[in-house]
């Protein structure tokens, strides 16, 4: 499809930039780990004894073995997810709102193509983008962790974490798209999507601080597949898998419903 190919073309340099950013992030993180390895051992025992709230404050996700590459990566993962979700929400909001924002709707939507088809092409292109980012992260993580890893292979765990991240990317992508799809004036959709992202991010930190708020976990995707739970249980919690799928599906359906039925902001 022409719209699909065009969207892929337009996004290739930004995607490259984000990919480079992620790789740099992982690289500098693992370099830090290399320096940390020597003093790593004894600290773990100490840290484990601290109450959860203190551990959260110290920026340590509780229960992780900091002396292993795997454990360290788990901490790094928190920030990788932040980068990936920002990318997804900005992409989702942007790819849908750009025709109205840049005033090219009077060109594109007068063509003999149903709006739903345009939407499908754009969403597919965005999907490919987040998939590529995920794979780049996966491959560079596996490679870089392997370089510094002296213990057991972490590859399986990384794949698991990446799978979890992909669901998060899907959620925020569809969130951005839905906001742009619903808004009568989609220009502000990226801001709204970012605001929601920031809110859920802070909420996840807040929950880390105060363990009694565990039941608020549903409200923030950052807690669906967080490193600690995934690594200790060795799998992705099926409940959150289903929840993520439902959220993404509902948001995408909403996008279709509203985008095809509303007036375009001309």
């Amino acid at each position, binding site marked *: 499809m022409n719209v699909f190919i065009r969207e892929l073309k337009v996004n290739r340099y930004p995607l490259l930039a984000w990919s480079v950013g992620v790789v740099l992030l992982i690289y500098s993180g693992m370099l830090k780990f290399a320096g940390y390895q020597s003093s790593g051992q004894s600290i773990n025992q100490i840290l484990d004894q*601290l109450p959860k709230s203190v551990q959260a404050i110290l920026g340590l996700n509780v229960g992780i073995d900091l002396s292993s590459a795997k454990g360290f990566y788990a901490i790094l993962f928190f920030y990788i997810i932040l980068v990936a979700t*920002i990318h997804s929400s900005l992409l989702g909001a942007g790819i849908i709102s750009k025709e109205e924002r*840049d005033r090219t709707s009077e060109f594109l939507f007068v063509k003999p193509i149903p709006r739903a088809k345009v939407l499908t092409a754009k969403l597919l292109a965005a999907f490919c983008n987040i998939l590529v980012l995920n794979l780049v992260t996966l491959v560079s993580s596996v490679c870089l962790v392997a370089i510094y890893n002296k213990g057991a292979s972490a590859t399986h765990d990384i794949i698991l974490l990446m799978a979890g991240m992909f669901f998060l990317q899907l959620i925020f992508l569809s969130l951005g798209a839905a906001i742009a799809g619903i808004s009568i004036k989609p220009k502000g959709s990226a801001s709204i999507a970012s605001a929601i992202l920031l809110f859920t991010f802070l909420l996840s930190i*807040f929950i880390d601080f105060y363990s009694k708020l565990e039941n608020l976990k549903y409200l923030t995707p950052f807690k669906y597949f967080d490193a600690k739970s995934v690594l200790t249980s060795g799998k992705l919690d099926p409940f959150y898998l289903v929840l993520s799928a439902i959220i993404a599906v509902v948001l995408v359906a909403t996008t279709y419903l509203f985008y095809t039925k509303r007036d375009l902001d001309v």
Partner: protein
Amino acid sequence: MNIFWHELKQYRRSTIVWVLSLCFIVLFFLSLFPVFSKDVETVRKIFESYPVAVRDALNVQIDIFFTLNGFYLFIFTYILLTGSIQAANLGVGIISKEAAGKTFDFLLTKPITRTQLITRKIAAALTLLIVTNIVYLAAAVFTANTVSHGDFEMNIFILISLTLILVQLMFFTIGLFLSAVLPKIKSVVTVSLPLVFAFFIIGMLDSIFGNKVRYLTPFKFYDPAYIIKNGTIEFKFLLIEAIFIVIVTVAVYYLFNKKDISAAD
């Protein structure tokens, strides 16, 4: 002056949202302090049993760690994060939105120099940031007082809180520079968000550069731990910031005066 008031009006709604957000964040996070201090006694005992070397490795001082200010130290990063996004948005957007909305032609053919235009916009943005900080400070002090039953060092608290505007000024300036340098900014948040989060992550990761990371990210310029310990900020960084802002601002004025302004021909 009309431009000044116009900008204030334009950003009124979003500024209110930012102010409220900052207040809510400080409210919710500080309200955790009572929970936190319950754990104090247990932790205190554990910590005292550690050799000094280990305590240092954790970069923690027992005394300050469990005061309100010590707690504030840890949550303040997130206040900084939120405030920085506000500032970056202002910096990136306040001039570039005229280009985006093609209103540059309208403004610049009025009897006003480009320098005057930029100055008034900057003045408006600064006013908004200052107002934000004043309201935030009030809310933060109020919350701190309530939550710790008045038992905290107010001066240090205020000093830490004042670093918010300092960091915001950095991001505002960087944002302005980006808007002068980048060709066409169609979406402000696509520039400001990655900008702020990039520096945020650099700060959080405390990377390979060791202590030098402090120079790389506005988030680490003013270390609350230092403030708590010494009662002042490190003037070295204030100086660096001042120099940085002056140089970049001059560059911004220069670039905008030189730039070709074109809308629809």
